[in-house]
């Protein structure tokens, strides 16, 4: 009896992610959801520039690799090409989504573009070797903030869910993490809802996943998971920041 298997939507290939990185978990959750909703055959995923740049090799659905930060614009094109038959998701990191691609992110949300955005927030640029991200915490040491992020010089981290929740446009915004079994289960629920919303035509749904980067944080995988609890969650509280349909139901 098979009790644990690889989701069909996840390709059977070795991934390039570092030991202890949580990308693998989130990839799996996305693939499980695609399987459970039976949408692999109509799903088109869009990989960003960053650590998950090669995500196009890791999902069995059709995939596109976008320019840095442009995934929501590319997704807009793919979705508008055939709104009835395309399920479109982007998978983006913090540098991609909240720095270079902020305009594309905000406007896709403002248009309530009927797409699903998986946003990996690990407070650092991983692929390029650990530079300060728009979500790096105050005082956080990175390659380009070697004395710690000085907010008087380079400003404050951006809370994406809170910011987007001020817009009329988006349907659903939730911040989750994957640093414990309970958290992973909760993250899956959120990701599933973000895809379901699209299937039901409800609109722009973004799940921010607080993730770990042991390599560039200079921590062991275990300590990195703890760092999420101790440092990240206090600055980036978990929870639902917008859920238009739920709000309408309770009225």
């Amino acid at each position, binding site marked *: 009896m098979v009790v644990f298997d690889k989701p069909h939507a996840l390709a059977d290939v070795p991934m390039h992610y570092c030991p202890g990185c949580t990308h693998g978990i989130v990839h799996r959750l996305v693939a499980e959801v695609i399987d459970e909703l039976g949408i692999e055959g109509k799903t088109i995923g869009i990989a960003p520039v960053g650590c998950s740049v090669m995500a196009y090799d890791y999902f069995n*659905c059709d995939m*596109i*690799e976008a320019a840095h930060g*442009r995934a929501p614009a590319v997704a807009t094109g*793919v*979705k*508008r090409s055939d709104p009835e038959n395309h399920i479109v998701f982007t998978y983006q990191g913090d540098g991609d989504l909240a720095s270079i691609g902020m305009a*594309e992110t905000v406007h896709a949300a403002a248009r309530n573009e009927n797409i699903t955005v998986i946003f990996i927030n690990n407070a650092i640029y991983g692929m390029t070797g650990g530079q300060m991200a728009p979500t790096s915490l105050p005082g956080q040491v990175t390659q380009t903030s070697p004395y710690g992020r000085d907010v008087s010089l380079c400003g404050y981290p951006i809370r994406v869910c809170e910011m987007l929740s001020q817009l009329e446009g988006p349907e659903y915004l939730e911040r989750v993490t994957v640093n414990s079994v309970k958290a992973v289960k909760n993250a899956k629920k959120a990701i599933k809802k973000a895809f379901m919303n699209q299937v039901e035509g409800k609109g722009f749904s973004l799940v921010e996943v607080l993730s770990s980067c042991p390599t560039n944080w200079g921590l062991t995988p275990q300590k990195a998971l703890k760092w999420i609890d101790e440092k990240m969650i206090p600055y980036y509280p978990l929870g639902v920041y917008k859920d238009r349909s739920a709000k309408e139901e309770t009225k």
Partner: protein
Amino acid sequence: MSEKVLMKGNEAIAEAAILAGCRHYFGYPITPQTEIAAYMAKKMPKIGGTFLQAESEIAAINMVYGVSSTGKRVMTSSSSPGISLKSEGLSYLAGADLPALVVNVQRGGPGLGGIQPSQSDYFQATRGSGHGDYHMIVLAPASVQEMAELTVKGFELADKYRMTTMILADGTMGQMMEPVALDIEVKPMPEKPWAVTGTKMSRPHNIINSLFLSPDKLEQMNFERYERYAAIEKNEALYEEYMMEDAEICIAAFGIAARVSKNAINEARKEGIKVGLIRPITLWPFPKAPFENALKTVKEFISVELSMGQMIEDVRLSIDCRVPVTLCNRVGGMIPSPEQVLDAIRNAAKNGGNR
């Protein structure tokens, strides 16, 4: 003879795009091409198409990238500063071998420049515009009729060779009104088995991508792309010749500059000067053959341009600098007058090829 309608150049592009089966347009407002967006905004919702005003030119070209990935005909239009912004996307379209139609209704530059006609994006268009080794097919219309015809042709070439076609027009071409016959034949779109439209669980996944981390593989991709480019250079060069049979002086000009030059040539011929015109219609591939051929009789070329002299380099390359090539130009939104061109012709005639 088919019925003609009076249209602005920009509108002719928009209508021809719809005729060619384009149902997705993404753009961002910029003078002097806004009529294209306005036309699409009116028409697309009525024919089940998509008009979307993007948040930026960068977003617009990436929306084009998205639709093109799904195999459908798609376009954007802009003017010079906006094309600079789109150039990132143009490089990615080239790297992913995606077809698209991009219109540049040029204005004077550099920087914010002006809003009057210009041809100073010739280098940007013919040399690829973004980073990396690539070309776009560049079509230069010289009438409203050609704005329409080359738009249809542009989509066909883009699909045939899986690359961007750019319509390189200028403010004059975009704004002027002329009668147009719109009974343009549209060939059926080729199959696009590479497109991402969902696997339907019946084939391995397709990937649209320009990332190749293995240098061997990336080199191979470039070699293959340039083999395709070589075929285009061989098969797709277009040009018009005017009074070239006995020409001793040859004007090279495209777009509005070619129209002005024709007037000057007519006047010069009355004075007995043997002058003709080669009008490149494809700027890339540049039509080298007629220039080579012209060397049988031509002693001097004059490149008439609305730039500081950009196409002149291709004219010189086409003839390996074997006879003099001079420049007759205005820039910044100014257009050479027929008199200015006539003076340049008279001057060349006086010199008899001895520069």
